[in-house]
């Protein structure tokens, strides 16, 4: 592993902290995922309803087309109050991540928290998880696609997996 003091890490190289974890896999969950339950209230429920229906839906300004995440009452770009929930492609790239090894919950296996940059808009980012992949996949710019996994309380969570050619 390079110890270059400055400059980007080499492409396709896992970070030094993850070198020993290279073989660690993040399987597609087979049991319902149980962390915290989203409030799914006024202003956020359409996101979770979309996920349960197998769609990644985000708030979008009807006037200027800007996607607003997290959703707000007005478009922060043009001020329009005309926001609608629209499905997005669910395609994006890995922007940043952390491999969680501490079992914060009983029986919790290692997993990968992922900050995903969605293709639709330059600043459209979603915190989620990378699944169906491994530490060896991790790099900035890794193409990913949404996959919906079952969670407790009849919810589904939009996670992401590497796009396989």
């Amino acid at each position, binding site marked *: 592993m390079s110890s270059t003091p400055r400059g980007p890490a080499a492409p396709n190289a896992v970070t030094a902290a993850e070198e020993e974890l290279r073989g660690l896999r993040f399987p597609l969950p087979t049991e319902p995922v149980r*962390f915290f339950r989203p409030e799914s209230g006024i202003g956020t429920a359409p996101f979770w309803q979309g996920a349960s229906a197998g769609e990644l839906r985000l708030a979008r300004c009807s006037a200027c087309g800007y996607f607003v995440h997290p959703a707000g009452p007005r478009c922060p770009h043009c001020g329009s109050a005309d926001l609608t929930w629209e499905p997005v492609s669910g395609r994006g790239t890995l922007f940043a991540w952390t491999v969680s090894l501490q079992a*914060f919950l009983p029986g919790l296996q290692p997993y990968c*928290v992922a900050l995903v940059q969605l293709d639709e808009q330059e600043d459209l980012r979603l915190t989620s998880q990378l699944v169906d992949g491994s530490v060896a996949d991790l790099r900035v710019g890794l193409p990913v696609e949404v996959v919906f996994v079952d969670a407790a309380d009849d*919810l589904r969570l939009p996670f992401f997996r590497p796009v396989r050619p």
Partner: protein
Amino acid sequence: MSGLRSAAIRGIGQSAVGRRLGRSGLDLTVEAAGEAIADAGLTPSDIDGIATYPGGGFGAQRGFSGPGAVEVQDAMRLTVDWYTGSGEGPGQLNCLVNACMAVVTGLARNVLVYRTVTEATEQVGGRGAAATNPVVGGPLEWLMPFGSISAVHWLGVVANRYVTQYGLTREQLAQVALTARRNAGLNPKAVYRDPLTLEDYLAARMISTPLCLYDCDVPADGSTAFVVSHADAAADSPNLPVRVEAAGTALRGRPSWDQWASPTRTAMHDAGASLWERTDLTPADVDLAQLYDGFSILTVLWLEAMGFCGEGEAGEFLAGGRRIALDGELPLNTAGGQLSAGRLHGLGLVHEACLQLRGQAGERQVRKRHEVAAVGNGGGPIGGALLLTTGLG
């Protein structure tokens, strides 16, 4: 120009600090407050204001929030003309900045400021709470349902982004923890004082990459207190008053853990920028720094946010640890920081800055000039900075 320059910290106090002290937050607060008031050469009857972070009130969390201002007012039978407990503002420094504004505007003359935590005794945090699958709303609705349930996840993402962007090595990052531990060895109240080597650090288990055990601070019980007075009134205090040269309080980007335009430039950078806009001093004038180290990566980012080095250059700045050592050009977290001395949640760093400026830090006293100290508190969506001085008028 900063109107806060006429405010001064004239008294400081700190309770017992430790891992499970088994004492109430109110008990610890009264201990620290009593010490600060005596240190200021005052009596409780002189105190006419209270400011704390984050205070009691509706969002109070046991162990984290500490007792509210009204509880302390009652316990100490204080008579105050102004008081506040507020969690929103320039990080944990909110309470000190509020106190400065109160004495400058004349709402109060001598404000008791405190921050109290009993997190070690209460063991608050994700472990117990998540097991009951509670509902989260607000900003956390976009993090916690996905498994981003701990601050180590929020900052692990930021840290990895920094690593991939700037090539920060584990050896460079380790210097924050190693320096803190070396300094903690000279602080009798520090929670962890045993020597820590680079080998220990590199062998420690990962919590969430790239942050290992020693990159995470330690929950503690303890209270830190100050008396903030108008600088004119502080002239006759028994200890050297510490002047508030400037405060960094700005918020210019999107305050969240994951939505900043650049995850490695957050609220702390806004705080740092606004700090330097309000003073004629420059980073080169700073003699020592106390930069928030709830996680080591925050200290890395604070070095850049405060302008001690350029963006992406903190790794080089930290390399080898020479610059940030007690006898280096910028002694850093001289009491051991939160990583080794315990998470007094920001205000412990201010207490140490005052001790150093007053020349009362004992074995760990910075030997070179110690007239200007920089403090940074917070990370992610919150950040605040203070420039504290003695001797420069």
